[in-house]
């Protein structure tokens, strides 16, 4: 029943091999711009046309025609040898792309199609209909002519993609039998002998097979044909074996007995990391992220992930990151299987240590520290503060990657604490236009200023906001009679009204 719910899809290339097999971006066969093209392959002992582009088909060349015949018909036909292995490799790459981009369950359906299991994935791509259109558009861009069918079963999708009327066939759930009925028997992926038998008994379309009793049908066409029919109709499950992504390094441990204690899980983590480190070492990779999946005895999975800021395969470091996650694993009645995957890897080769060994640089690599802290409080909570080219104080600082070395700020006097919002000062006594205030009130206290530096004039950044075109702030560093040093500013330069309303603000404190 679950199979019935499954939405499978077969996208095929009717002009298989007609596209250039070397590049995904080659223009599609049949498009204008080149001579008519036909591919010739050896079928049995004959050389036959195995594929022809639309231009060649318009000239009367069709697959299955003897190569010599085709040559005689069209003298300037562009003949090329068919390369089924290269086609297969290309199709495999497409399947890998489908696994990575569209659905975790996607497989090659040889010789010219792809299965993509859409159950549970379609909504991620905007629904089945939309996904199919995007898929067709993608194939068109990549230079393929594609046909897409979506159906409840893999067999039905396979049949409709190859024998359906439209380029895009979408069968509603549980309407499979109706959709299959008008298709020829050949759509059922039958063996040639079964096809010949069907023709002999007068079965032409699938509709002819449906009302016939299964027993006599099996005797005439053979049991495999019945299986194919049932697979297409959904009576027999036909699971798609997904193209696995072998690029992902993986380590797995099955345990003799389920474990549940933190110490035992830690031990398994260390063992798995040891295995994975060897895999990574052999491939010259370093892990940027790790996913540990524990299979509990009740069948559910416990998944924890860690990330690193630089590729690494250092076991103690990764183990420490994973150990931070142990408390998030709920062992329940026990975990009996662990799998450690590195979904994101990057090349990690030997590093030139010359400068470090020679003692010329003392800089330590902070990436391990960053990983440890990010593992505890989150990636966004670890950062460096890097300069931004802006004279407006609150804009001069931006968060940046903690592994990158930022530059430095110009050495204007700056406070150690800067208020996110400047706080208004009241009852300010100051000589206009460019003297620091003599006294001011702030937070209910009166401050008597004994010394001041300034002004440091900061102009508004007219390219950011309309309101800043004329804005000016005059910053003063003042010291009160108690020894407190403050950073205050006045809006406006004291001459032009456009530059500000001459209000005073407190923006920070110096030590």
């Amino acid at each position, binding site marked *: 029943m679950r199979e019935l719910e499954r939405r499978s899809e077969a996208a095929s290339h009717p002009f298989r091999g007609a596209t250039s097999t070397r590049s995904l971006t080659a223009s599609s066969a049949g498009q204008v711009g080149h001579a008519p093209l036909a591919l010739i392959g050896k079928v049995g002992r004959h050389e036959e046309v195995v594929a022809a582009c639309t231009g060649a088909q318009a000239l009367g060349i069709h697959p299955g025609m003897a190569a010599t015949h085709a040559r005689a018909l069209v003298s300037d036909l562009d003949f090329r040898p068919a390369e089924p292995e290269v086609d297969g490799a290309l199709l495999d790459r497409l399947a890998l792309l489908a696994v990575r981009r569209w659905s975790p369950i996607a497989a090659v359906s040889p010789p010219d199609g792809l299965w993509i299991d859409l159950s549970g994935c379609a909504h991620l791509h905007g629904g089945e209909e939309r996904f199919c259109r995007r898929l067709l558009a993608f194939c068109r861009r990549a230079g393929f002519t594609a046909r897409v069918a979506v159906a409840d079963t893999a067999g039905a999708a396979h049949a409709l993609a190859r024998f359906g009327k439209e380029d895009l066939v979408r069968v509603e759930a549980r309407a499979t039998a109706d959709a299959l009925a008008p298709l020829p028997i050949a759509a059922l992926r039958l063996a040639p002998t079964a096809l010949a038998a069907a023709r002999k008994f007068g079965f032409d379309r699938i509709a002819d097979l449906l009302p016939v009793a299964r027993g006599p049908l099996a005797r005439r066409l053979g049991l495999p044909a019945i299986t194919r029919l049932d697979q297409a109709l959904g009576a027999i499950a036909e699971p798609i074996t997904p193209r696995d992504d072998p690029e992902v390094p993986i380590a797995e441990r099955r345990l003799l007995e389920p474990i549940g204690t933190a110490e035992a899980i830690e031990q398994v983590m260390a063992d798995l990391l040891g295995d994975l480190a060897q895999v990574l070492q052999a491939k010259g990779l370093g892990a940027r992220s790790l996913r540990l999946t524990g299979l509990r005895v009740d069948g559910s999975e416990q998944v924890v992930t860690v990330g690193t800021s630089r590729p690494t395969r250092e076991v103690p470091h990764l183990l420490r990151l994973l150990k931070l996650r142990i408390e998030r694993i709920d062992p329940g009645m026990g975990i009996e299987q662990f799998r450690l995957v590195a979904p994101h890897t990057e090349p990690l080769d030997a590093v030139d240590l010359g400068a470090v060994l020679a003692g010329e*640089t*003392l*800089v*330590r*690599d*902070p990436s*391990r*520290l*960053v990983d*440890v*802290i990010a593992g*505890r*409080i989150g990636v966004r*909570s*670890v*950062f*460096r*503060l*890097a*300069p931004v080219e802006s004279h407006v*104080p609150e804009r*001069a*600082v931006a968060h940046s990657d*903690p592994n990158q*070395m*930022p*530059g*430095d*700020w110009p*050495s*204007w*006097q*700056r*406070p*150690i*604490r*800067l*208020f*996110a919002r400047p706080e208004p000062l009241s009852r300010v006594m100051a000589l206009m236009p460019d003297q620091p205030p003599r006294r001011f009130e702030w937070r209910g206290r009166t401050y008597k200023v*004994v*010394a*001041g*530096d300034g002004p440091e004039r900061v102009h508004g950044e007219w390219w950011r906001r309309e309101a800043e075109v004329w804005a000016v702030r005059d910053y003063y*560093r*003042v*010291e009160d*009679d*108690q*020894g*407190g*040093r*403050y950073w205050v500013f006045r809006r406006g330069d004291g001459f032009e009204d456009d530059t500000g309303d001459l209000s005073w603000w407190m923006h*920070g*404190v*110096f*030590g």
Partner: protein
Amino acid sequence: MYAVADSLPTTIAQLRAVATPAADFRVMPFGIAEIDDRLGAGGLRAGALHEAAALSASLVDDAAATLFLAGIAAREARAAGGPVLWASCRSDLYAPGLSQAGLTAANVIFARPQDDAALLAVIEDAVRDGTPSAIVGEVSRVSMVATRRLQLVAAEADMPVLLLRRPRARDQDPLAEPSAAWTRWRIGSAPSARLSVAGVGRARWSVGLARQRGGESFSLIVEGSDETGRLAVPAELGHRAAETVGTARYAVA
């Protein structure tokens, strides 16, 4: 008679050696004789927890305490060549100001945990990691047990852990709580020297050592850290008794 007089200095030296605890740890000298001589080991112990708190609840004293710790961290970073981890739950620290105290942008990694408990965990993780040259944390709620933990890991990793203690409530003295810190400082800002021209002179702080292991407490006025994190002693105050220095406000406090 003569024999006694000859042997006396050696005896005194021996007695001193017995009386003072063996300083078999690395120290970070301030580079100022006035402070270093009064610290038990001739400087701050490197692998230890040090605490500083603002002299009063005002923001300027808090800023002075921040810069005081930043200066210590900057000198250690310059010597050890590792980054400084600055952990704080707040976001009002202004990095260009920190840069002028010697902690340039390339020298500091910031961590902003959610609360004090996470902050202490981050500090402990970082000390055990061993990459940073010094760690500065701004906290208000630290238990005695937490400070002892930090002191132990800091001693093990030989890495200074500097805590800026914030008061939990207004008018509450953060240094009144017990702590296992090696030294506890009370820092406030002090009036700078009046220049002959208009302007603000080099920042001065009132630095008070409230408690240290193996030494007496003291207080004096120093000039704030320069761009390498070094303090200085005001020239005209250098010869005076430190305890008598300070304005009326600090005499009361």
